[in-house]
């Protein structure tokens, strides 16, 4: 089987802050990590590779330093990786990104399934996976909590959605977006880490994908961000001290005083 996992390097949101003046992320000094949801996508692909045989290729579109997430994926057990990186790809929205990733999947050829995390924790759009499926004209199963069956022809997966659980069957090739319910990602292995240190990761550029500048990056992005704003920082709550009786009556006064109805 030939599986592709699309991963994204994201700022560690536990560390990220927003410049309140400019409304942009302050990325300086913020560590970059593999999008946490992508680790479940990677594990799911490797789990099925281990069972069925084949290879797991990890791809990412990003600047040269995004290579580190690919090396991390290799240390966890991915077979190989490709960095999709070109100045022409800069400023891409989800449409242009999906178009570029789909071209890379097509270039790889004979791919059975592409695994995505359900969304990236920086943009939170959850659009790239589905949009790649549309671009490739492949079926997609999003929000996969469990892959029940997978063979060379078809897949049966459980989608965990707000209204409950759906069991979906489709033919391969397919695009999946994976939830964290699906598995527990493995710890990197020593051999994987040694391999990832030595591995040369190929870089695919615009010309390698047969795309034009008009289709990629900022040029290929219909989305225009008009304005971004930071929600006002929450002020600290109030702390009241006293006996239970005092506190209960004060709390009631406060709530009712603010127009609440008991």
């Amino acid at each position, binding site marked *: 089987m030939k599986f592709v996992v699309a991963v994204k390097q994201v700022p560690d949101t536990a560390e990220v802050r927003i410049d309140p003046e400019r409304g942009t992320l302050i990325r300086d000094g913020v560590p970059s990590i593999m999008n946490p949801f992508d680790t479940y996508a990677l594990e799911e692909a490797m789990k099925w590779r281990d069972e069925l045989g084949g290879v797991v290729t990890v791809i990412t579109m990003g600047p040269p330093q995004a290579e580190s997430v690919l090396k991390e994926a290799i240390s966890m057990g991915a077979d190989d990786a490709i960095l999709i990186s070109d100045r022409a790809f800069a400023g891409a929205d989800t449409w242009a990104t999906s178009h570029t990733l789909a071209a890379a999947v097509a270039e790889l050829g004979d791919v059975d399934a592409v695994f995505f995390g359900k969304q990236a924790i920086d943009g939170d759009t959850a659009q790239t996976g589905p949009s790649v499926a549309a671009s490739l004209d492949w079926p997609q199963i999003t929000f996969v909590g469990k892959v029940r069956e997978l063979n060379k022809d078809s897949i049966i997966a459980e989608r965990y959605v707000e209204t409950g659980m759906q069991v979906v069957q489709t033919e391969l090739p397919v695009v999946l977006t994976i939830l964290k319910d699906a598995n527990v990602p*493995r710890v990197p292995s020593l051999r994987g880490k040694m391999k990832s240190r030595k591995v040369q990761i190929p870089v695919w550029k615009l010309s390698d994908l047969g795309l034009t500048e008009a289709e990629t990056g900022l040029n290929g992005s219909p989305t225009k961000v008009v304005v971004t704003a930071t929600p006002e920082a929450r002020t600290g709550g109030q702390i009241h001290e006293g006996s239970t009786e005092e506190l209960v009556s004060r709390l009631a006064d406060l709530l009712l005083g603010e127009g609440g109805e008991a």
Partner: protein
Amino acid sequence: MLNEDLQAIKEICIEIGEKHILPIRAELDEENKFPREIMNIMAQSDLFTIYIPEEYGGTGMGSMALAVATEELSRYCGGVAVSYAANALGAMPILLMGSEEQKKKYLPQLASGEKLCAFALTEPEAGSDAGGVKTRAIKDGDHYILNGTKQWITNGGEAQIYTVIALTDPERGARGASAFIVEEGTPGFNYGKKENKMGIRASATRELIFEDCRIPAENLISREGFGFMVAMKTLDNSRPGVAAQAVGIAQGALDEALKYSNERKQFGVKINSFQGLQFMLADMGTQIEAARALTYTAAGLIDSGAKNFNKVSAMAKVFASDVAMKVTTDAVQILGGYGYMKEYPVEKMMRDAKITQIYEGTNQIQRSVIAKAMIKEAHRK
């Protein structure tokens, strides 16, 4: 200070520690429960490969690598770490003195973590005096027949491969001992009671009972009469592992003490602003660094191929284990009443630390070894 390979090992152990040990260590301790799942994760991460040469399916990274892994795992749980390190101890007789056939047969299964291993020397009457072994092995054609009981065997009941010391010639005492490989499931080989221990409770410590247990003659390691030498060499090689375990437990306790003393306030200020407490922290940190340096020296000496390392290896074990006992006791003191409670991990660390002064040669025996080696060196000149 660590090279890239050792750094990689450390990172893997931290990831296993944070994700898989920390959340359940209190439960494993409370319930006396063997960490089977964690062993599987370690296997998947190649941690069992590091002390096994590449030609037998390992990564052949040596004693220093084993010390780094054991130390890092011990920072999270001394019991989990010893369950790991006891595999290296069990494999050591085969690694050091095994035949090519034995290495080919057993080492790859141990490197992959498919099977766990244990070393069985101690008996009710043979602790520090390893010459007091009573278990017999009588040659019977192309088999040996084992009879006797081994006691306090780490990984007992959990391992599938055991290296066992038994007497082939009782007349000759220690010189009549031989080492054997015994596989789980061999008729006549059963497990006795599982011990209820003070510390390292995640690890399994159990009796092995041999009753007319027939094993193939090719399971003899080295030659008849070499068993005591196999055992001593094994322990000399494994002592830096106990030292590393002690360093890790101590470091874990210091980390907790540093964290707590930066949060806890008394008299309106953080308790780490009190000089009396600062002096304790300073001594704990200094002692740990010294113990770590000595441990790495011993491990490095083994990896360098040195022949005489039993003195330094014993020094590392003695020093690091005494440091671990002192540091964990001080950590409980710094956490005060909370430190004495099971809600906080330091009381467990203090219980875990104690065994490092006792097993794989008590610290008293180690001091004899050190002194004898020193006296011998002095008079050789």
